[in-house]
């Protein structure tokens, strides 16, 4: 069997193994990869930087553990930045597991020295309103009456107890909405209802699969889009809170190199085999 035949007949499990190695080995390396920041990611960071201390921001967590590898670093970085810059964070979710993921992100964010130094308090500096069913209708209703949609927080306490929720009636009391999205309901609905209908500034952190769909709304309908793990790494670089997004970029790059290599080899093998077949047909 020639090399060409071997290339065409390679068992795909070898490819799986190589991809697994390409992803895993860099996790053990202490190398840092340079992160090129895109305009779309910069838009989120710039919007946050423009907010004065004490502003309320909504972090809408519309994702679940299935996509946490991509978007959880964004949630952690967003919380770290907001809490260390005295922005008050209202957490909520249109996906049942979203606010639970936010609790995990909070746990990580509160450990950061810059955040811990300010000792943020639940109900004063941040609150988790939990999940509310109803998809985009929830956003629509929040435009007129947030307390009616979220009468209690995720722990069942009335939101009237919390200073952070004082005088919060609708999006007018919120300076920025950051939606972390893994599909429907997600960024499209936040743009359509909170952004375009109620004129709330919306930013998005999303899975890489969804990112191309949301770039079309940038920059007028959405202030910025963090696309996938790369977007998370860019956000970490912009805010100065390096985390898993940056650490995983090396694995991401190695995996891409393997994929590209196999695409190139596969195409070379395909064209060579086609030429050999034509020659054989010509000789016959």
């Amino acid at each position, binding site marked *: 069997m020639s090399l060409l035949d071997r290339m065409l007949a390679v068992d795909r*499990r070898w490819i*799986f193994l190589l*991809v*697994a190695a390409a*992803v*895993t080995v860099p*996790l*053990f390396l202490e190398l840092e990869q340079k992160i090129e920041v895109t305009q779309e990611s910069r838009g989120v960071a710039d919007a946050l930087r423009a907010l004065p201390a004490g502003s309320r921001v909504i972090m809408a967590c519309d994702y679940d553990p*299935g*996509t*946490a*590898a*991509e978007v959880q670093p964004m949630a952690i970085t967003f919380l770290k930045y907001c809490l260390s810059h005295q922005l008050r964070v209202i957490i909520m979710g249109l996906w*049942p597991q979203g606010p639970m993921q936010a609790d995990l992100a909070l746990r990580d964010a509160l450990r950061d020295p810059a955040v811990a130094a300010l000792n943020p308090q639940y109900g004063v500096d941040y609150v988790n309103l939990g*999940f*509310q*069913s109803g998809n*985009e*209708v929830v956003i*629509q209703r929040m435009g007129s009456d947030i307390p009616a949609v979220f009468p209690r927080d995720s722990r069942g306490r009335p939101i009237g107890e919390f200073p952070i929720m004082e005088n919060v009636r609708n999006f007018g009391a919120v300076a920025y909405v950051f939606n972390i999205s893994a599909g429907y309901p997600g960024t499209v609905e936040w*743009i*359509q*209802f909170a*952004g*375009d*209908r109620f004129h709330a500034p919306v930013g998005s952190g999303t*899975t*890489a*699969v969804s*990112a*191309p769909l949301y770039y*079309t*709304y940038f920059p*007028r*309908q959405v202030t910025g889009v963090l*696309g*996938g*793990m*790369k977007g998370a790494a860019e956000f970490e670089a912009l805010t100065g809170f390096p985390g*898993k997004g940056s650490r*995983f970029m090396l*694995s*991401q790059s190695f*995996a*891409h190199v393997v*994929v590209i290599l196999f695409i190139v080899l596969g195409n070379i093998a395909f064209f060579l085999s086609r030429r050999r077949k034509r020659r054989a047909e010509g000789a016959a």
Partner: protein
Amino acid sequence: MSVNLGVWVGALLTLGILSFLYRDNPVYKVCEAIFIGVSAGYWFVSLFWQNIQPKLYLNLRGAVETLASGGGIDSRWLYLIAGVLGVMMLMRLLPKAGWIARWPLAFIVGTTAGLYLITYLQSNAINQIHDTLVPLVGRGEGRFLFIALPFHVDWAALLVFIGTVSGLVYFFFSVEHTRLAGKTARLGIFFLMITFGASFGYTVMSRMSLLIGRMDFLVGDWLGLVH
């Protein structure tokens, strides 16, 4: 190595699912069945406690108590309509009464269409058109490669404009795709292919990210080899 039972269960189930990459096997089947079962159970419990109990049961109970104490009929009785529509939806399970489920479905389709008619028109049509119709050329100095231009050119906007027009021409079937229309449509195909390619690239990146997350869980949280 982790001493957390939950982490061990997660790690073994992850390995069980990944074993499919070698070949289909009973361990994979078990892990798949567990995943489907747990998901279905989780959603059932979640929807019950997030919807039926707080929104239907508690509201209707409150409405009944108000009525019983002489407070009259309040707006919470409207939840009864939602409850009835929900029960009607379940009629699909009965072969002879399946047609009843069409009524709540019609309600859902109607309300969704009403909700989205203006929303999509505003967000995905008018605002998108508005963002595409931007000045392509303006005052000031511009540059094309190494050549200085006496006017400013927004190259990104120009590219979007060409891509939008040629893409629309490709989907405009009232004119035969020959001569200028044919060439423009062909250019539109290039733009569409580049778009699909970019989407595919992002999809690969997304899947790799999920794999990285799992691998980090295995070598970090489970085996404790990476901190």
